[in-house]
């Protein structure tokens, strides 16, 4: 297959895969709905004569649509953030968990569950603590004169561990009858209870995050050449990196705040996308977005259809993600030395 054909095929695939999965996902679930009924119900707000029944309407609009949208948005956010992080830190083992975002957000959510339980407060706390943890990581790295990427990554690891132990502390004091299971379940990651209101709440932060990363897509390539070369090409590497970290944090915190912690997506999707379209972020970022959205939606469908008890999606992404990651490594990642 020549290069141009390959490009056309991968473009078509990446554009249509999430769209096809989006419609197919309405058919998945305990209550069987025919494709015709799904299409009719989706069109019914415009054409009321197509209305099927209130049961079908409730399932499509209030149960399946929010969940499908959540899977697409969370998958896209975590994957784009992972791609950007891997690019600017020049490291394949990096994902949005790196700078403490996930554990910080997890702590925020655990705290909110402990004291309140309202989903809006959980979301706000997860979001705020995600941002706080990255800020601490960043400030610590700035406090060392040598600075640089390594210090930033190491302080991220430390801050992650710190928030992880705070999470354990909260689990320890949480009421084992009701609060503890809720915290544990939230930390495992799930899209089962996402509502339309929650999705609306994260639309703006996600849009800002996507937009910033997309606008900086070409400059991200230059940053991957190393800071000194980037500076000699007229960029201000630390400033651009800060903007990209901020955008990734926004994406990750917003995603985590509705879904809980879903690992591995941000790690494996960038690798898969890079194998399909190459390392140029101009194409790679949109490709990761599409691939990540499709992947999480697919896994969420598996989680609610294939097995009779619903498994938290965070567990499934790890079970499926780890072998894929190892396979990708085996495929010969010549560029990572």
């Amino acid at each position, binding site marked *: 297959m020549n290069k141009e054909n390959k490009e056309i095929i991968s473009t078509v695939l990446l554009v249509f895969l999430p769209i096809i999965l989006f419609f197919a996902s309405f058919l998945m679930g305990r209550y069987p709905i025919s494709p015709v009924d799904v299409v009719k119900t989706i069109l019914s707000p415009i054409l009321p004569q197509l209305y099927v029944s209130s049961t079908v309407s409730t399932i499509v609009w209030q149960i399946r649509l929010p969940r499908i949208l959540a899977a697409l948005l969370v998958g896209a956010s975590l994957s784009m953030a992972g791609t950007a992080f891997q690019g600017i830190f020049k490291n394949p083992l990096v994902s949005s968990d790196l700078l403490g975002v996930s554990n910080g957000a997890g702590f925020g959510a655990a705290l909110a569950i402990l004291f309140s339980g309202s989903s809006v407060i959980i979301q706000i706390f997860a979001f705020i603590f995600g941002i706080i943890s990255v800020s601490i990581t960043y400030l610590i790295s700035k406090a060392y004169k040598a600075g640089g990427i390594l210090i930033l990554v190491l302080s991220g690891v430390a801050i992650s561990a710190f928030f992880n132990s705070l999470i354990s502390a909260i689990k320890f004091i949480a009421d084992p009858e009701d609060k503890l299971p809720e915290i544990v379940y939230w930390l495992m990651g799930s899209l089962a209870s996402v509502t339309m209101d929650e999705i609306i709440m994260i639309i703006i932060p996600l849009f800002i995050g996507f937009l910033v990363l997309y606008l900086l897509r070409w400059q991200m390539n*230059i940053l991957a050449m190393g800071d000194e070369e980037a500076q000699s*090409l007229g960029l201000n590497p630390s400033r651009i990196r800060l903007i990209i970290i901020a955008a990734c944090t926004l994406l990750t915190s917003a995603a985590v705040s509705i879904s809980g912690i879903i690992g591995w997506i941000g790690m494996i999707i960038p690798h898969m996308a890079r194998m399909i379209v190459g390392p140029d972020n101009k194409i790679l970022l949109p490709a990761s977005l599409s691939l990540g959205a499709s992947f999480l939606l697919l896994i969420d469908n598996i989680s609610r259809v294939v097995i009779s008890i619903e498994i938290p999606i965070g567990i499934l992404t790890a079970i499926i993600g780890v072998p894929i990651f190892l396979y990708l490594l085996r495929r010969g990642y*010549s560029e990572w*030395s």
Partner: protein
Amino acid sequence: MVLDVKNISFSYDDELIFENISFSIGKGDVLCILGPNGTGKTTLIKCLNRIHDIDSGEILVEGKNIKDLSFAQISRHIGYIPQSHIPTFPFSVFDVVLMGRAPYLNLTETPKKEDEEIALNALKTLGIEDLKDKDYTNLSGGERQLVFLARILCQQPDILILDEPTSHLDFGNQIKLLEIIDNLAKSGLSIIMSSHFPDHAFLSSTKVAIMKDKSFIDFGKPDDVVTEENLKKAYSIDVKLIKIDDNRKVCVPLKTNLKLGDI
């Protein structure tokens, strides 16, 4: 003068790296900086395009103080190839060369048709068009050096700063690269490079500096500066200068009869 360096000094974490360095270069000059390992040639070079900020003195680029220029403004005057490059992602050669257009684009802009033409021309100038679609990570040392040269040509600067451009090249490619540098200088570019080979100073340079003990011990024309006496001072070994045909000089380091144990 294209670049005026006046009495600059630089310390890294309170350790003085160099001081009292002054020189200037004009259009078409090739300055070769010689000196033993660890004298701070690389640090000096990084001060010239403000990767490091000097502690005192001033650097004037086309008469403008470098401290008053933004990174983008500096990058339109000065192109830079570091001594070593650690590749991460297998970008295509064309994409790497195209990065040379960054100084002329806004933070959120991507290269346009004109930029792509300039990149293509840079590849043509160096005769490496056929590498265009290859991954730059899979090239030989010589090819990769040409790709980086194409990138700085694409940057359209007045000054090229090359940190030991020949250090990863084989015997033949070293000479070819020096000839390319010579040609670029004749087309009006000013070039500053560091080197470990005093011979290189005779091959393409119009000016030579010898750096030792935190400063220049000599600066001037190759014939005046690259002498047996200066080379002995710089490298602490005896060196013989030999004239070969067409008046070209070569430097031959003499054996020191070193024995293990008395190093």
